[in-house]
């Protein structure tokens, strides 16, 4: 379990990072917290020629609120995400989800940007940014572009990031009046990747729920929205019957694959249980 030989560089600026990426092309890999990348190197599942350590890039740090937007730097660690007052106020879903990621040692190093760029289908944060309709800021040699979370996750460990590009920050609209979010997951042991996780975000008007986004992790090759279930509950009061109805339709949205910890059928079942529990809690919290 030793990685294949690689070079290492730690650029001091984005400019320098781009030069390194340009110079090495496909052979270079960005290194943030290393909590996903280093295991793959040690297991020789990947063997980049050079690691470009972005941890010194100040432009990728910081959490701020400006103009109704919460901006979270890509290098923000899971621990910082969990502890941030801004995040707790403007996007509590992220703080709640972060506490389900691994254990403190991993959370202290692993980064928000790394989690999104790595795009593990069972990871919590990709589901959350989709639920929050976040936009991702991506920098390249030619400038900066913004991509909606909905367009960012392409597939298994695949994203919209092109060669030579760096995810610099995530922007999330500050929680608006009436909006609430909820998060829950089933993992065999605390800190494990989830068998199914649900990030939910929507507006409550009295008993009724609107604009609900239900995003699941751990059930497909990327985070998926359960749109049929969303439509089933749109504009309605959250009752046991409604939840049962939405749960029954979840099969139209999700078609989970088997993995060593659960069959697809089990994952679909658990996803339904999550739907009931998360929506009840959100509705209950409103009262």
């Amino acid at each position, binding site marked *: *379990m*030793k*990685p*294949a*030989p690689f070079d290492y560089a730690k650029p001091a600026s984005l400019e320098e990072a781009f030069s390194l990426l340009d110079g090495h092309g496909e052979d270079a890999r960005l290194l943030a917290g290393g909590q996903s990348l280093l295991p793959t190197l040690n*297991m*020789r599942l990947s063997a980049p020629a050079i690691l470009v350590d972005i941890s010194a890039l100040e432009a990728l740090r910081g959490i701020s609120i400006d103009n109704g937007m919460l901006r979270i730097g890509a290098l923000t660690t899971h621990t910082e995400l969990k502890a941030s007052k801004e995040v707790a106020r403007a996007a509590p879903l992220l703080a709640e989800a972060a506490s389900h990621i691994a254990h403190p040692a991993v959370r202290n190093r692993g980064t928000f940007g790394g989690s999104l760029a790595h795009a593990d289908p069972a990871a919590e944060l990709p589901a959350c940014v989709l639920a929050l309709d976040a936009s991702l800021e991506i920098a390249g040699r030619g400038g900066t572009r913004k991509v909606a979370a909905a367009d960012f996750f392409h597939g298994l460990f695949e994203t919209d990031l092109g060669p030579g590009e760096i995810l610099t920050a995530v922007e999330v609209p500050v929680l608006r009046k009436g909006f609430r979010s909820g998060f829950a997951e*089933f993992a*065999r*042991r*605390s*800190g*494990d*990747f989830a*068998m199914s996780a649900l990030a939910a975000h929507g507006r409550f008007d009295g008993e009724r729920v609107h604009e609900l986004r239900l995003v699941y992790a751990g059930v497909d090759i990327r985070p998926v929205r359960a749109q049929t279930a969303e439509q089933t509950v749109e504009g309605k009061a959250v009752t046991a019957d409604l939840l049962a109805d939405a749960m029954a339709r979840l099969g139209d949205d999700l078609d989970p694959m088997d993995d*060593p*910890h*659960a*069959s697809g*059928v*089990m994952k679909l*079942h*658990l996803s339904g*249980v999550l739907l009931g529990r998360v929506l009840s809690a959100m509705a209950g919290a409103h009262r």
Partner: protein
Amino acid sequence: MTDKSPLSIHDLPNSYIGRSVPRPNTRRLAEGRGAFTDDLTLARMAHVAFVRSPHAHAEIKSIDVSPAEKSPGVIRIVAGEEMARHCTPWVGVLTHLKGLKSAPQYALAVGRVRWQGEPVVAVVARTRAAAEDAAALVEVSYEPLEPVVDMETALDPSTPVLHPELGDNLAFERIVDAGDVDAAFAEADFVADEVLHFGRHTGVTLEPRVLVADYNPGAGKLTVHMSTQAPHMMKNIFATHTGIDEDDVRVICKDVGGSFGIKIHTYPDDMAAVALSVMLKRPVKFVADRLESFVSDIHARDHRVKAKIAVRGGRITAIEIDDLTGIGPYSVYPRTSAVECNQVLNLVGGPYDFANYRAVGRVVLQNKNIMCQYRAVGHPVAFGVTEALVDSAARAADMDPAELRRNSLVPDDAYPYTGASGIRFEALSHQKSFEKMLQLMDYEGLRAEQARLRENGVYRGIGLAAMIEVTNPSPMFYGVGGAHISARDGVTIRLDPTGGVTCATGVTEQGQGTEAMIAQIAASAIGVPLEKVRVVTGDTETTPYGGGTWASRGAGIAGEAALQAGRALRGNILAVAAAMLQAEADTLDIRNAAVVDTDSGSERITLADLGKTVYFRGNELPDGVSPELVATRHYSPRQYPFAFTNGVQACWLEVDPDSGFVQLLDFWVVEDCGTVINPQLVDEQIRGGVVQGIGAALYEHCLYDDQGNMRNATMADYLVPMATEMPDITIEHLETPTAESVLGAKGVGEAGTAGAPAAVFNAINDAIGVLGGKITAIPATPESILKALGKV
């Protein structure tokens, strides 16, 4: 007398027996100053990495090492045939396990590979990384063969035979038939039956297997530094298969980061690394990494048991079982892979008083990783079966499961007693232990709470498990079958002119506190404070010959040797003192490292002064006094094949019927391991064992696909139990010492693991029974529970 002494005159002798004194080595370990084998770096040391088979069953067509040989840092690349010239193959059979058969196993596969992970090519390089770089360039071409994966069909005529020379895939078969089973079932008031599955799992040691083999051609000597449980056994094995004279082989084992039975077997990669050191005439280090540990460390369990129980007059009257287990492609050497099945047959029904028992055990070969003895060999299966049967029988008879147990346990006044399978018990305390448990857990109160909560849709369950544990094995375990495995262990104790005492022993420290235990007994036996005692373990050249650490034998066997050696040394010291002080030896005592008058307690001479006189100023000694400040004693149990212990475990848990998730709420253990030497160490052994048993019950499972590939061979996918999910574990003791030794200690290292799976299993079924659910396999996953409830 010094005031800072921890001892008062009144609690001598034996003051350390039964006291939770801190282990002398914890501080060193806590400060990161452990000496683990991987910490060792020797001059010219090379590193080996292995190319392992990606197939469960295949013919090796060709091996091309030429690109790999050019890789930087490579020293030597060796494949099966060449290795076989330097390391002879071994066969894991023992004569007392009648009919057991296995095939020669080579350090590196020759011709055919038989499990995914089997070592095929060894690559030696200057660093482990360079060895891995080169290993990736070795090209082995295979022709895949049909793998034998499912043990249930391993004996079918249409299934390929793993070793054609063996004729079939049946490695071992044993039948027990006692009493009149058919009549007992015919006369029964109630009969219950079960088909139970115990998943394959492994013992995940924090420190993986590791060794540094150092052959010195100048001296013709081989020194192997390794993390092991049995240095003397390994010395014999290395000598036997490399051809080096056994007296020229030395095995040194310093700190060990857990073993659990993993580090007591002959592994092909270990053997290859040792042979490579001899071939290359330089030190070679092998450290199994986590990925290779999963496919090369022994696995355990994997039993399918069909079982039946008869109840008459509210008591158990008969049990019948059919046990099938798959052990991988070879019986492991030298302890064999028939022992677990053999133990299952011996132990089923063990806590209960009944006479009619029939058992069939079959051990089959298959193309999965090798399987052998892991903590609590056979016990979790035997008590998993027995206790599941007892609960089923109680349901069938509409009895409280506690009542059926109470009626059926071997009575405390029945000893000596021979169990239905033929196992002999010297003295146990099942009835007292069971009543103590019911009180400890407030059984009646929990039943009432359970009923109350069910009305609110909360499903909690109580699981009870009575158990026995095989400890202090006599030569009847292995030696009788021809293995060079010592059942005897010794302790040599020496008094130095500083007043310090050094104990050397053949049992080893695995992190469980052996050294503390030996020190406590020696200090007590001689009469010195614990701080004066040093313990040396893990070196075949400096410790007495012995068996090492396994089958919960350290305290019971080496502990007794320490007691006897300590007493002998005390006698020697008093004889010298009597001559020096012109007193009668029997009027003197040793307390707090000084010779004192027994009656008055007044100090006559300190041991340090006595030692100084003996060693430096021997001229002052009276004529005819020949001081011997060293004593050695050995001990091996002889009267009983094993000193059985007994205990009861109980679990209280909640099942979420929507998700199938289990929350462990409480866990209790009542244990009788005879004399308790260090209560804290004993309790830690039980707690750790229970946690490992919970691992087996809920989490740990080596999952294989239908091609014989292990699907979850990483720490992310192989689930070990973690602290967050573990319940509090409350422990109480009874002490029924064995009369075979003066110390009276039995073992306790495996009790937790032996009983916990049954307790958890029964608790789950107790929780979901009212919903019509019943699980039949461990580990019980959320999915298997929901399946049992018909929800997925």
